């Protein structure tokens, strides 16, 4: 019961810059503090950026326009998600970025959220 392979998924990774370079050799293990839907933007009183790597400066520039999810930042920059998470996490710890956390796991089945989703869908498409 196999499905046909999509050719693109068989190709080797070709990021713009090798991941181990832009993450300074840090591993690509999941960073639990940032999820795909954590919302990120630049901090109001961010430190100076001159000494930052060009990749980080570009991420900051992208984030300076408003809030985006981690997934959107990866999509716009074409960096792999794991790389983006590490860079964003560094930038957050350095005081350059602030995050809005996604729904905490305990609140996943929050009635309010489901209700908002339902009403939003009905209002737009109903």
């Amino acid at each position: 019961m196999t499905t046909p392979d999509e050719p693109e998924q068989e190709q080797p990774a070709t990021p713009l810059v090798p991941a181990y370079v832009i993450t300074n050799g840090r591993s690509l293990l999941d960073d639990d503090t940032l999820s795909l839907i954590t919302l990120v933007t630049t901090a109001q009183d961010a430190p100076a950026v001159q000494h930052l790597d060009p990749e980080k400066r570009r991420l900051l520039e992208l984030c300076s326009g408003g809030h985006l999810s981690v997934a959107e930042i990866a999509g716009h920059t074409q960096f792999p998600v794991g790389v983006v998470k590490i860079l964003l996490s560094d930038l957050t710890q350095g005081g350059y970025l602030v995050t809005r956390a996604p729904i905490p796991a305990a609140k996943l089945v929050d009635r309010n959220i489901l209700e908002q989703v339902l009403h939003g869908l009905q209002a737009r498409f109903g």
Partner: protein
Amino acid sequence: MAFKPDSDESVYLRESVQTAAKILVVGHFAVGKTTFIGTMSEIPPLRTEEVMTRAGEGIDDLKGTTGKTTTTVAMDFGRLTLSEELVLYLFGTPGQQRFVQVWEDISRGALGALVLVDPERLDESFPVMDLVEHYGIPYTIAVNRFGDRPDHADEEIREALDLLPETPLVSCDARDQRSSANALITLVRYLQSRLN
């Protein structure tokens, strides 16, 4: 500079948005996931790559660490701002079992999943059904009827996929916004019913 999206504020979320939620759109190869996301998204759909380790064919193989090679898996996603306060992301995820690592990441924090199935290729849906069940993601089946082949009765599909009686099953044309929205609404209503 190259990284700043060309234009407009619509790239960015509204200032007032505080909360992000996520629903998965899953299914086997070429079942309509990308089409569905494109139909529903308020932004041009985006694509990200997850660099991952490929660990054999089955979920059980994940814990092993031998003979791994890395590969990239593309997932596409779209965005829907549903209130002043809330944004919903739709993530399309391939259903092949060897992409389980992507599944761990993508399924964490998901409200639920819409499982797209083609009634002509029901057996191809088995791996993805195994995955949603394995991760305990509540789901609704959206039957994507391609072309004008004879209708398969819902009962037939339910039986083939071994669905629980309470699992919703809706028809959906992924190219049509109303139809796609209706499938999402069915899923959300089901998620609400599970709280009662």
